[in-house]
């Protein structure tokens, strides 16, 4: 395998509404930030890959216009996944592994504000047996949270503590949508209170990947991707044990998470209860700094929030605040699909 690193990361300030911005206008600043950080121009990039969803935009082929923000002329080698940008990063990593590219630009974006994202996400569910019931994303997460409480894995006070810790950490994150003291609030769907749920908002993120010496030339301390893998579970909630995440565990094993301890973990846990599931699957103890960015509880631009976890973990390595970090992204109801990557700074095990 070629050594590939995240050499630049940028994200928007995440906000509840961005009515004044098209997707292109939202994406362009972060694209320019990562290009400027590396001194690369669009035509220097070997491969471009993005992640987004037509269902958020409310129109078919929404990603075609976002391509305008990339400056795809002369034509570029480019692809798109209808998934969180973390999987776009995975596709780009594979492309670099083939040797056909040495650099890649990855971006993703999501505007949840135009619709009711709780309702929109119900359209992901089995269209014959579950979708027609419109069980929304908070209700499904609440089922999972209650299962955790019933199993003795957590309680409401512990969930509230996760929310408090995340929003306190987000005070140092200028891009966060909500930060600082946030009241636990009323139940949205019992046992989840407003504080247990992610903010709804719009945002975008971009990353540049580079291989080997190219990465070293572009970034003083590249965040090397030592392993990356993703796995999916059955769709039906009725055949899954919601208190566990075997796909996260499997992806982590394949990514090499358990070979050495990590010091940091950026987990894509939109609900407090999902952090409990992920910590268990990944074997994270109190020695690991979890979600120093505030995580998805501080900003959850759907389709970009997973890529942002990879970017936040990489940025800590860039800044010398971490030597070995885990980054995680999720997709689907109740953590159905999960991606895990291990990122390291150069001197970590020299």
């Amino acid at each position, binding site marked *: *395998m070629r050594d590939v690193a995240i050499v630049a990361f940028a994200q928007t300030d995440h906000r509840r509404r961005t009515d004044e911005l098209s997707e292109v206008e939202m994406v362009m600043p972060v694209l320019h930030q990562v290009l400027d950080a590396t001194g690369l121009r669009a035509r220097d990039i070997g491969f*471009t890959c993005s992640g987004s*969803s*037509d*269902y958020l935009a*409310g*129109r*078919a*082929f929404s*990603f*075609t*216009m976002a*391509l*305008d923000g990339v400056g*795809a*002329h*002369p*034509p*570029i*080698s*480019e*692809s*798109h*996944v*209808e*998934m969180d940008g973390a*999987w776009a990063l*995975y*596709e780009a990593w*594979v*492309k670099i*592994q*083939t*040797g*056909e590219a040495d650099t890649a630009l990855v971006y993703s974006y999501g505007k949840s504000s135009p619709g009711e994202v709780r309702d*929109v*996400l119900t*359209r*992901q*569910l*089995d*269209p*014959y047996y579950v*979708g027609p019931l419109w069980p929304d994303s908070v209700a499904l997460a609440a089922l999972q949270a209650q299962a955790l409480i019933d199993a003795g894995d957590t309680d409401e006070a512990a969930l509230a503590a996760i929310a408090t810790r995340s929003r306190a950490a987000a005070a140092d994150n200028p891009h966060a949508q909500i930060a600082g003291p946030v009241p636990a609030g009323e139940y949205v769907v019992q046992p989840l209170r407003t504080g247990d749920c992610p903010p709804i908002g719009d945002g975008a993120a971009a990353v540049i990947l580079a291989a080997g010496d190219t990465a070293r030339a572009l970034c003083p301390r590249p965040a090397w991707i030592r392993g990356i*893998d*993703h*796995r*999916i*579970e*059955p*769709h*039906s909630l009725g055949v899954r044990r919601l208190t566990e995440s*075997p*796909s996260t565990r*499997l992806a982590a094993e394949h990514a090499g998470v358990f070979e050495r301890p990590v010091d940091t973990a950026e987990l894509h846990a939109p609900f407090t209860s999902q952090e409990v599931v992920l910590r268990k699957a990944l074997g994270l103890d109190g020695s690991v700094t979890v979600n120093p960015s505030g995580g998805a509880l501080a900003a959850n631009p759907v389709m970009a929030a997973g890529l942002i976890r990879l970017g936040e973990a990489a940025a800590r390595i860039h800044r010398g605040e971490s030597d070995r970090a885990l980054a995680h992204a999720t*997709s*689907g*109801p109740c953590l*159905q*699909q999960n991606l895990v990557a291990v990122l390291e700074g150069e001197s970590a095990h020299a």
Partner: protein
Amino acid sequence: MPKEPVAVVGIGQTKHVSARRDVSIAGLVREAAVRALEDAGLTWADIDAVVIGKAPDFFEGLMMPELYLADALGAVGKPMLRVHTAGSVGGSTALVAANLVSARVHRTVLTLAFEKQSESNAMWGLSLPIPFQQPLLAGAGGFFAPHVRAYMRRTGAPETVGSLVAYKDRRNALKNPYAHIHDPDITLEKVQSAPMLWDPIRYSETCPSSDGACAMILTDRAGADRSPHPPAWVHGGAMRSEPTLFAGKDFVSPQAGKDCAADVYRQAGIGDPRREIDAVEMYVPFSWYEPMWLENLGFADEGEGWKLTESGVTELDGDLPVNPSGGVLSTNPIGASGMIRFAEAALQVRGQAGEHQVTGARKALGHAYGGGAQFFSMWLVGAEPPTR
């Protein structure tokens, strides 16, 4: 380290029809996947990862359907990727899967593309609401008709060329048991007397809306050695994209298409595509795109593509058969149409195309495009393993 050679060892399609009311979406994709596994002599346990593609989720009203389809495609516990690059997606999906093998991330990958268009109305699904687009275009045909007209003006091609393409493709489809449109009574007169839909495109020169799926099993050299049937080898593959609209855009022959073909030919060591390629499965949703793409892909000089069509070169028994399967004009489950092109090219070099087999086909090109003639994906497959 050089890339791992990629072989196509399994191909499965559903019988494409306007509405598969007898199966769910999961049932449809599983049918194609099982056929591909049977062709490869493999079971679900042999598959390391699944790469699925389709066009806009609105076509079925199902957001990110890979989540719901994980079980039906045997992906539980495995990596599953979902590609979406507009109309080129079927081709792009196959290339993403091929990259997993050539990069040695996985040994054997199932790739599949589908559309179940009977779940919605594709034409209006593609017609973006105000304020994204003026309310005049009414589907893909409305978008592409002016570019066809531009081609006719630019080249002086006779008005009948489009009907020749449709007449050929619909006759080829009669030899393909999986093709959607089977019209044994087809005549050139019938094609030419069909109502005008989007001037200069007649109803008979447009693609249908289909329910269908196409699956392929891609594997490495060791996997190919175990294949019960001759594999098709990937000699080159590429994707290129350009914006929908920009000053200087050539809708008749987009630069991205030219660049994509050039990249594939470079990888495959093709110097003269017209002589070295034995069969082409190109994405022709409206008849006139055959002569247009013949030029864009380097099979004819600029302005000369229509002459190949008119002189019968692209017929099944011609010198350069184009769309021996009947093409998109005969079968169009949109998200799968690109993968069907790629799979049909592979069938040709495997010698498994049945009645629509091109005699002695050793190298074949699969081509797909999408969006506003802006996304291109292509692969070149051969009967022999690549030597470079």
